[in-house]
């Protein structure tokens, strides 16, 4: 890539966008309260805050979806009481949402210019494909894409798809790109690519608002960090003051307790609980995997997205077909034909996609918790609502699930509390092996720490814990050992002494650790 060296010096320029005393209330709740901030051209703002801090409302105001009750929004020197969707787009504010809005069945070019395709003229309104491609190529170059305009979007990785979204933003001559949790589902290597794109935007004078729960990424890329708490500006950190602890302190208004770390005293490893013997998955049917998880340990399973970790977990849980090999539990070979078999043996999975696979959003908390163990909550096959409520009540207190009651619909809970419901249904059944696939994705910091604590408590109680995670801080901070997968195989296992981001990354891309 070739960018001019004259990156715009932020502090000397007039702000592109400024908010002044913005207040927004919804019936009975103050979502934003006298919030002010500025974004200068070419500035990367890290916007952080716990779930419910007001970030979404702020985004809606900037996108023109809602109007603030009071306050002014100044874009390019023109003051507004509120923006409209067209006004927001017209002044060059573009969004890249956490959930991407791409048509997977179309190619890159068609996605970028969807609805604005250059036409050949004539009554048939045919798309001028040649012109389309020449227009898309430079955009892709600007975001550093390593794929071409006619690649089908379905074949792109998540990071590449985000590049398409950013290229789309550039195509409408965006001057401010707002990235909402762009890295929450990206593996480490892909995250680096995305952060590079942000830096490239910056050198072009395009401003970026980067919203993320992954604070070390904010640390790496932001020029300034704006922290929201309870709808108010909790503080602004200049480049020199951006660090993890400061951000957390501002976000939650206090210092977190000692970050969750395995106690330094070497733990005596327990016996092998779950053992995969030459297990083959549908994703890599020619690559046998051997992996042991011991009682009392948290084994982190790291690797790039697509390295076969989730597929391995699904096979171990009996959901996916096994293409070969055996699974042993405490040295005994297991008949594992379905998830029901795994559950009967005390092997539980907290799946990656909470809303799709983890909980039934329409059922109550109690009904979700009792579901895997319903016969135990029934007499003569008739469900006892009071037995369900008793179990759920106990778990609700244990895990600190925040909800009015156990009869509350699970769909109304926050992500962190939904995840606790998933955990609760398994904790109520005395797990032997607990497999957690990305257990803290999209969950705010307070709830994350609680989930780490729970995993540790499980391990201390002798449960074998297998945690799949793409969050480097998490893998290193929580695990007792780390196994790394690369293209369907275990490329290495690290003991506590060898933990480092570098080693995990090297193994993830198939190289030897140092």
């Amino acid at each position, binding site marked *: 890539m070739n960018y001019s060296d004259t990156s715009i010096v932020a502090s000397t320029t007039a702000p592109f966008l400024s908010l002044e005393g913005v207040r927004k209330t919804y019936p009975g*709740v103050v979502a934003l309260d006298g919030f002010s901030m500025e974004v200068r051209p070419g500035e990367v703002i890290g916007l952080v805050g716990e779930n419910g801090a007001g970030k979404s409302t702020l985004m809606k105001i900037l996108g023109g979806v809602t109007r603030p009750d009071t306050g002014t929004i100044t874009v390019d020197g023109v003051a507004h009481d509120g923006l409209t969707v067209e006004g927001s787009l017209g002044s060059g504010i573009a969004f890249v949402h956490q959930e991407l809005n791409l048509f997977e069945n179309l190619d890159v070019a068609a996605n970028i210019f969807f609805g604005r395709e250059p036409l050949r003229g004539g009554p048939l309104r045919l798309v001028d494909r040649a012109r389309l491609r020449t227009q898309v190529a430079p955009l892709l170059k600007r975001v550093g894409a390593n794929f071409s305009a006619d690649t089908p979007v379905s074949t792109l990785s998540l990071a590449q798809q985000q590049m398409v979204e950013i290229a789309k933003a550039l195509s409408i001559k965006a001057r401010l790109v707002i990235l909402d949790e762009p890295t929450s589902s990206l593996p480490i290597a892909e995250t680096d690519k995305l952060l590079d794109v942000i830096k490239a935007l910056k050198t072009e004078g395009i401003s970026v608002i980067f919203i993320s729960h992954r604070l070390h990424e904010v640390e790496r890329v932001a020029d300034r960090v704006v922290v929201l708490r309870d709808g108010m500006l909790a503080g602004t950190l200049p480049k020199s003051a951006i660090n993890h602890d400061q951000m957390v302190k501002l976000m939650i208004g206090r210092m977190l307790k000692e970050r969750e770390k395995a106690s330094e005293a070497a733990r005596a490893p327990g016996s092998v609980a779950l053992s995969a013997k030459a297990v083959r998955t549908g994703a890599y049917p020619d690559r046998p995997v051997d992996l042991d998880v011991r009682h009392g340990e948290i084994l982190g399973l790291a690797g790039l997205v697509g390295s076969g970790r989730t597929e391995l977990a699904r096979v171990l849980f009996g959901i996916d077909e096994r293409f070969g090999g055996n699974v042993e539990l405490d040295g005994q070979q297991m008949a594992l034909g379905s998830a029901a078999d795994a559950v009967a043996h005390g092997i539980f*999975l907290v799946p990656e996609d909470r809303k799709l696979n983890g909980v039934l959003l329409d059922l109550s908390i109690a009904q979700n918790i009792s579901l895997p163990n319903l016969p135990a909550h029934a007499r003569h096959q008739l469900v006892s609502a009071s037995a369900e409520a008793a179990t759920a009540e106990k778990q609700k207190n244990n895990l600190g699930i925040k909800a009015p009651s156990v009869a509350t619909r699970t769909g109304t809970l926050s992500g962190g509390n939904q995840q606790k419901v998933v955990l609760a249904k398994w904790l109520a059944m005395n797990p032997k092996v607990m497999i957690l696939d990305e257990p803290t994705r999209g969950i705010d910091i307070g709830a994350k720490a609680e989930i780490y604590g729970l995993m540790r408590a499980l391990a201390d109680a002798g449960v074998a814990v297998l945690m799949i995670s793409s969050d480097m801080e998490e893998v290193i901070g929580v695990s007792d050992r780390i196994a790394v997968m690369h293209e369907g195989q275990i490329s290495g296992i690290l003991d506590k002494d060898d933990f480092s981001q570098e080693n995990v990354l090297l193994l993830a891309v198939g190289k030897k650790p140092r």
Partner: protein
Amino acid sequence: MSKKDLGLLILILVVGAVVAIINPRFLLPINLANTSNLIGLFGILSIGQAFVIITGGIELSVGSVVALLGTLFIDFIAVRDMEWPLAFVLIIVLGAIIGLAHGWLITRLKLQPFVVTLCGLLIYRGVARFYTGDGTAGFAFGQNFPELEFLTAGRSYGVPNSFIALIVIAIVMWVVLHRSVFGRYLYAIGKNEEAAKYSGIRTGRVVMAAYVICGVLTALSAIYFAMYTRSISPASHGQFYELYAIAAAVLGGFSLRGGEGSLIGVLLGTVLLQELQNLVNLLGIPSSLNFAVMGGVILIGVLVDQQWGVFRARRLMLDATRKGAAGAPAE
């Protein structure tokens, strides 16, 4: 009883009152008995359908099964001189086998319910016509089965026994659907089959059982229909009955996506449909308009329900934001 069911009940009463005012014959015991007999027959059928719909499936072969099993039943007892209790059991077993076959194709071979049961609809109808040589299955002059006739077409204290059978079945199935472990699994699978699987439920077996229940209840109603008409021409007997059953479920608040609906709902749906049939007859509306009236009422019913749902969702959201405000500072 949910608000939805209550609304449906009120609609039934209002329509009934209007019809009774226009044509007082509506309330004559003979009319009520006839209508409740039909409610009994279609109700048993509709409850079976409801168990399939709750899983997100559909059973289109119901009408053809009614024709085939009805033909076989009459043939067994009238032509082959089989003892009727034996024939009765055989037919029920056949219904279960048909349900099992459908369930197996759908859960094990992953075929779509619509496709499987559409093929069933065509196959069973064809087999029934072939079996009788496209003739009519019926009883010879003077053939009588007093106990069977009493149980199926008879009355106790003026109430048709078919209606009493429906009430008994409805009570049992209400417990199964709304109180049992199996019923909870049905709802869970209908809402989100993947999540149910991830909770360790053997979803294939549960869905298969739903189709078996549907097959058994359909077989039972096939016997009732056969004893009601007493002669069956397989080319037309039971035609569109699957649609009556689906319509009753949909009117009763079932979602074709699965996971929603109550047993009382499907019962009330059946009652309303038969009331409408009766209305067409009593009010002198040309009987050719029969289907149009039913279609129109179902459409309006579903539309009202849908709009009510949107309204409720909005209100819930408002409540949630209010509660969120009250709860936030405490966190």
